[in-house]
Every structure is written in C-alpha cells, then in structure tokens.
C-alpha cells in the first residue's frame, strides 16, 4: 500500500485511491463538485486542485491517484487562490436566486463560497439566461440557470440506472442540462439526481417551496417500502407547523450504507411517506357499536380487547400478523400468543399483483420485515386457512394487523365471508383501509417515524429505525399496544422501551443472540444464520 503525506500527515491507503478519498481519511475535505465516489471521474469543475511536490502545476485531486512518497498540500497559497477563482467562475452566470431556491441552506455553492469566496464580485455584464422550472419527469424539476454543469446527474443516469435520459446540450456557457428528445426522467431511481446535484438545479417537485431546509429536523431511519430496507433519513418539519401544508414528514433522503443501498433509494420509497401524515391515519382507539363508531381511551380499550381475547377459546382466535411489524412487535405478539395459547397465527398474505423487482435495489416483497417474522417464529399456521375458519365460524375472533385483505390475491367474496363470519374483528394498524372498516375494535398504531424498532431485511440484516416524531393523535407503537395487552392478560410487567423488547428477543431467539441496539448501530447487523 502506497505511503504518502497530506498536509504534513503521513498515511497509507490502498493503491488506486484518489487524493480526495485519501484526504478524507485524514478528515481533510478537499472541496469538489463533480466528483462523486459512485460515479466515473469527470474532472470538470476544477475545484479540487491540490499541490503535489515536484509537480509544477496544481493538479485535480479527483483524477490523481496516490503514489508512494507523494507529498500533497491542500492549502497552499496557490491552491487557495485557485479555489477562489473557480468559485468566482462558477458564479459568473449563476442567477444568485437563493431567496427563492429550495436548495438554499444545503447548497454547495453557498457552503464553499462562505469559505473560499472572492467577496468582491467583478461581474457586471449580462448573464446567460437558460430555462427555469422545467419538469423533467414526475418527481424532478430543473432550473438550468442554477446548474453548474458538474454532469453528476448525467453520469448517474448513464452509469447507475443505465437509462441515459439526460445530456448536456450546446457548448460553452450556453451548455445546458436537458432530456434527450422523447425522454422523460421517469426511471425508478430518478429522485437520486436531486441528492447528488450539489446546487439548486435539480429539486424535488413535491418539496418545491414547502419548507426551508433549516427548519427541518432529521432522524436516521429505514425505508419501509420493501425487503431491501434501504437506509434513509427522515426529514421532518416541526418548527414551522404551518409550512408544507401541515405535513410533518416532508422528505426522505438516502443514508449511505455500503452493504445495503450505497448512496441511493428508489422513487417508490422516497416519495412513499405520504401515508404517515395522510387522511386515513387512525388516531384514536375505537369501538364499533352497530352502525356507530365510538372513540375510546386506551385505558378502556386495553381491558376491552384483552377481555375479548380471553373470552374465546384459544382455538377460536385467528391472528393475521404483518411482515411490516418490527422484530420487537412480532416478538411481543409471539409472547402474547403463547400466553393465550393461540396457534392460528400467520403473517403471509399474498399481494393481488406480484411486486416489481429489479437487479439493483427494489425487491418484489413489499414488506420490510418478512425475514424478521420468519425468524421470530410466528406463523406455523396458514393465513388463508385462518380466514376460511372464520368463514366457517370456527374462528370467532380475527385479529388483523395492517393488511388490507381486500387488496390481496384472495377472492373478494372469500375475504368478505371471513370478515363477516367472525364475531369480533380487531384491526391494528397505522391507517384505515377497506378491511379495517369491518373491524369491531380498532387499535391505532404509530407509523415508523413515530417510534423505535428494528426490521430484518431479506439478507438477514437487522436495522434500526428511530423516532423522529411523536405518534399522531393517540396512536401507540405496536410493541406498546401488545405490551399493554400482555400485561392485562398475564399481569407481567410491560416493556418501557422498544429496546427492552429487543433485549428479550435477543435472549430468546437464537438468530438474534448476542445482538443489541448498540451492536446494530447505524450500519445494521446480520442475524446469526446469515453471518458468513
């Protein structure tokens, strides 16, 4: 491995490492725009120049790989002057419309200008004008004047998705990002160009003029959209509640995880958070009384639901758990089933249409925790048989988590007969759906950004999602609802936190042995069976 020195500090890195990455290891940031570790080297922005001893001119760090004995300086007078010049050049034709730009506050032109700016503009001539507010596809909008022509978006579509919708057209300072004729930026990963665009040229259509980024709080999370479990950040607006039309979760951003999703997430996941603040959210425990639905307090609901469960024989209860529940939820449900002696439990409900899948991130299984449900050991039974038993009045109490059975692959008549056949239908979930309309008892659950938990992705990676918001209304995390029921049924003390549930899970289920929230960390941890 070559040994070199950067700013007087020695280091050793694998051969082929470029100077931006090498410096990063020392915590030295070499400013850059066009370089992105996931994309080919373009060398266009010219901002990442460094001085190398014995080399007459400053070199671009992105296209210089480390060599034995190299002595690099990232802050010489000449380098600092060059950065200043390049920053001035980047702004010659830039519209400087930060006050109306969604990127303001997280724009790399602003960030680098603060440090490397000329602070003495010399440009008094007319700027080159280009198209503004051009929708490129369903999610992304372009302001060509703000574009610094770093070509990251073009390289993303060429190299990552292979869809090549974008190109740079014209020449010189008339150069412009645009769509090839007849194209639309509608690939399944189009939103990522917004993240990699260092400026406000590409922005999210659904985030346009919604809220200033400095009013956002962020929290680490996991995308619930499929079995991949891409690592994300949830961005929530709580400090200006009147912004973004009152939505709390205003956007999701990918969070780097080398083993799972690298820098990316798919559009379905990215733009799929509306349910959290949606109109269908279940916000209060409720009981249906004939035609009427009555909201009740949890203190009333828990004994009521526990009473129903205890009121039936164990073989009269059927449970359709959900592979969207967390490991913690599923573990508590297992304990509750054990306490009640219920055996008719399953979590598998086939979707009406198979989910789409590709060879990149998107998995056909649209549930975040199918693997977790398998491992926790729920579901010896067959879900369709449970429904059939309800139809045949053998199962009298049907407890459904999350699922909309009416949107499943099962015939509608069969589902309706089952729902109408059961004496008591309990629905537990975050949002109302056509199935929940048949419930006698509704237990409102907190959505994933409103709680803690872990999911196990298809590869067996257990990943933590964290709480960014309080639950809406009186919703409670599933584990908490289940813990209260368990307490009611069994008299056992209930867990205070999701982490307590996980600790019990790790102590009980061998696949999770030795794991803790700490060991899972931000990067996730493979279950025992999946470890090499």
């Amino acid at each position, binding site marked *: 491995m070559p040994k070199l020195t950067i700013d007087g500090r020695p280091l050793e890195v694998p051969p082929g490492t470029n100077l931006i990455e090498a410096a990063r290891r020392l915590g030295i940031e070499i400013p850059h725009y066009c370089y992105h570790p996931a994309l080919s080297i373009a060398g266009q922005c010219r901002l990442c120049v460094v001085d190398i001893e014995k080399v007459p001119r400053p070199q671009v760090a992105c296209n210089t790989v480390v060599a034995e004995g190299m002595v690099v300086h990232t802050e010489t007078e000449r380098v600092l002057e060059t950065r200043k010049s390049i920053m001035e050049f980047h702004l010659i*034709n830039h519209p400087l419309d930060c006050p109306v730009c969604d990127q303001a506050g997280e724009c790399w032109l602003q960030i680098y200008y603060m440090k490397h700016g000329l602070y003495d503009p010399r*440009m008094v001539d007319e700027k080159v004008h280009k198209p503004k507010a051009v929708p490129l596809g369903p999610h992304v909008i372009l302001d060509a004047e703000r574009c610094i022509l770093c070509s990251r978006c073009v390289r993303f579509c060429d190299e990552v998705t292979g869809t090549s919708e974008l190109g740079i057209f014209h020449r010189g300072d008339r150069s412009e990002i645009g769509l090839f004729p007849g194209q639309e930026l509608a690939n399944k990963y189009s939103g990522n160009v917004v993240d990699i665009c260092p400026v406000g040229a590409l922005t999210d259509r659904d985030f346009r003029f919604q809220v200033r980024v400095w009013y956002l709080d962020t929290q680490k999370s996991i995308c619930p959209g499929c079995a991949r479990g891409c690592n994300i950040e949830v961005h929530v607006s709580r400090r200006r509640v009147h912004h973004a039309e009152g939505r709390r979760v205003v956007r999701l951003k990918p969070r780097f995880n080398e083993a799972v999703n690298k820098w990316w997430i798919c559009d379905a996941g990215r733009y799929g958070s509306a349910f959290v603040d949606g109109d269908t959210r279940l916000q209060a425990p409720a009981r249906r009384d004939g035609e009427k639905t009555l909201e009740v307090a949890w203190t009333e609901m828990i004994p009521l639901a526990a009473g129903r469960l205890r009121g039936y024989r164990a073989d009269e209860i059927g449970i359709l758990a959900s592979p969207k529940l967390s490991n913690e939820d599923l573990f508590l449900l297992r304990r509750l089933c054990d306490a009640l002696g219920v055996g008719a439990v399953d979590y598998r409900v086939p979707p009406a249409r198979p989910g789409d899948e590709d060879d990149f991130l998107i998995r056909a299984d649209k549930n975040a925790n199918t693997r977790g449900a398998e491992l926790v050991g729920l579901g010896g039974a067959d879900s369709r048989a449970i429904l059939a038993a309800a139809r045949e009045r053998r199962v009298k109490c049907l407890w459904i988590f999350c699922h909309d059975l009416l949107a499943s692959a099962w015939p509608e008549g069969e589902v309706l007969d089952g729902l109408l056949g059961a004496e008591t239908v309990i629905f537990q979930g975050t949002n109302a759906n056509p199935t929940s309309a048949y419930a006698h008892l509704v237990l409102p659950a907190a959505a994933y950004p409103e709680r803690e938990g872990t999911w196990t992705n298809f590869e067996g990676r257990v990943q933590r999602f964290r709480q960014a918001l309080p639950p809406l209304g009186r919703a409670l995390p599933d584990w908490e609802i289940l813990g209260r029921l368990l307490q009611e049924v069994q008299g056992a003390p209930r867990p205070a936190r999701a982490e307590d549930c996980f600790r019990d899970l790790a102590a009980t289920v061998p696949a999770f042995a030795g794991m803790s929230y700490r060991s899972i960390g931000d990067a996730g941890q493979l279950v025992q069976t999946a470890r090499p």
Partner: protein
Amino acid sequence: MSQSAAEPIEPILTRNFGRPDSHTLTAYRETGGYTGWAKALALEPAAITDAVKRSNLRGLGGAGFPTGTKWSFVPKGHAGPIYLVINADEGEPGTVKDRYLLERDPHALIEGMLIAARAIGSRLAFVYVRGEYVAPWRRFSAAVREAYDAGYLGRGLDVVVHRGAGAYICGEETGLISSLEGRKGWPKLKPPFPAIKGAFGAPTIVNNVETICQVPHIVNRGPEWFAALGTQTQGGTRLYSVSGRVRRSGVYEASVGVTLRQLIYEHAGGVTGNGRLKAVVPGGASAAILRADEIDVTMDVDGLRNAGTMAGSAGVIVMDETVSIPDALRVVARFYAHESCGQCTPCRETTGWIYRMTERIVEGRGRKEDLDTILDVARRGTGTTICAFYDGAVGPYISYIEKFRAEFEALIPHA
C-alpha cells in the same frame, strides 16, 4: 545548420501542387510516390520510429511534440488493437494547409499512414476530416479507393474516413477521439494519455495530416537530410498559411527555420492596407500576438516559444496599422466563447464573460477596471483546464492587451 529560407528551398510537401492531376495515384507514382513505403517494408517497426526520432520531426498540428517520441509511447507488445488517427480537423483560425494536402496530395498522406501504422503496429487508421471540408474529403476518399484498388490499403492497414460536424474542439486530440467514438466531442482527462488508452480504450496515436505527409520523405531520403532542412531542435519544412493584410496570401512551404520577416516580405510579398505592419499572429489564433518590431524570429517551435508565442499550426495572420487590435481581440474572443466545449468551469464561464467585456470595450462602454479584470481572470484560469483550448484562448487575451494597451484604453471612457 539552418538553411536560410531566403534561398529558394526544394519543394517537398508541395512538390506536386503544380500538377492539375496531383491528387491521382498516377501523378503521385510518377514523382516517386510509395517508394518510401517500399523502403519502410524492409525496415523493422522500431527502426522506422527511430528514423523519425532522428529526423527531429515535430508535430505540425499545434503542440509541436516530437513525433518519433510520441510513437514510442505505445506500450510494447500490446495484445489488442492499436489505432492511428489522423487529425484533419484543421480548425485553427488562419490555417488552411491540411486542406491543400488533402486536395492536392492525398496519396502522400496515405503513404505516410502506411509507414506510421507499421511503426506503431496499427492495422486500422481513422482520418477525422473537418465537417466543412467537403471537397478535400471527396478528394481524399477517392484517393483511399485508389489505394485500396492498387493494393496499398486493405493488406495490413484499413482506413476509415470520418467526417466531423464543425466543432473546433474536435481538433483537440482527445475531443477528436470522443467524437470518433460517437460521443459529444469533449476532451478527455489525462492521464491516461491516448498512446496508452485512446480511441475505444485502445492505444492510439493522433497525428496531424502534415506531420504524416512528411514521413515518406524521411524514410526515402533519410532522417539526417530531413533534420538538416530545419533547426537544431526541429527538422524539415512546413506549410505556412499566410493571411490578412499581405499582398499574396496563401500557403507557402519553407524551412521551419524561416523567419517571420521572410515569410511576410518575401513569400507573401509584403504588407498591404496602409503598407505598415502593426502586428502578426504567427501560429494560428491561439498564438500570442507579436508587434512589428518582433518579427525577426525563426518560425520553429523553440524559436517562437522563446519569443513568448508559439508555432502552433503556422497560421500567420498579418495586421497593418489600420487594423484595430481591440476589434481583433473581440473577434477572437467571440470565437473562443463560441467554441469552448463547456466542460471545465474556467473555460466555459470566462470565455463568454471575456467576450462580453471586449465587446463592451469596443462599443465604447468599457470600464477602466475591465482590462485588468480580463488579464487577471485569464491568468487565474491558465493551466487549470482539461485541455489546451483555454490556454490557447489566453494567448490572445493577454498578449493583445499587454502589447497594445494604449489602444484599448483609448476606447474606454475616463480610462
């Protein structure tokens, strides 16, 4: 060693230019055509490269790089394809020499390509012809067909003639390669250099038309003969495209050691306009301008480098005292603003800005800080870009203003 160009020199590149049928295979053969190729067939490839090195031939496309040395960069024993690419894009303003060669002596280029390809181990050569060069392209394509029919081509070397679409940047060798590959003609980052990883990822040697036309003569008459035609550090003759305010504009062959004065006053017959020389651009638009008192320089690569300018493509543009230098800069600046490929920030953003400033100055709306702003911006941008286009643009920006500052200031109110 250098021969005075005042003495009439034996025409070499231009020896057939007088014959109306000079472009035909028959005419070419009658004047010794393809005998260099016959000799080269008896030489080991390395011996050809060595002869070219000893001839002191330097690239005539613009950069003046020693040709034999460039050829020797091709990795030895390379397994895959190796390409020879002929740069016939001729976009440098003031330069028309390659056009003459393509139209009047196309077989010289083909013979040179055969020899060069043998030297570097290439079996496929591309000729990238400037889009606007329709007649030269027809002539050259016809010669390629003749050479196939006569069995020179097709037996070890194939030639693909590719037409450009009219962008100056596609003359820059890696821009040319991008364009040849079917991409936008954007110059590529170096390293890797084309000789290691060029067209379609294969080792590629890019040479100018005129450079390759010299090769048969070197092989035929020996590298020492060729070297003796020029200066210590550069051999041979070259074609000078002389234009502007001269009595006889045209393409002249002379030693690389000819002086600028000789070219203007002897070959081109002296200055027109008001008859008094003001300035000359010696090597195409990208070369720094020289004042009338700076023309006693030899035109070889090192001679002009020492004079603070460059030999470039040997496009000599002559301006008499009636020519406005600020207006000339405005025209040149418009060219660079129009032709920048737009990849690198300094080039993309400042060529346009500098053009707008020069335009303002010429129109009488200059500000007194403009000249220093242009100079400062150009200096700061120098050497920071992917290709030499920007440094080529900086040549005129800085030299026109530094050498004729008073003329600019006279146009600026309150300067």
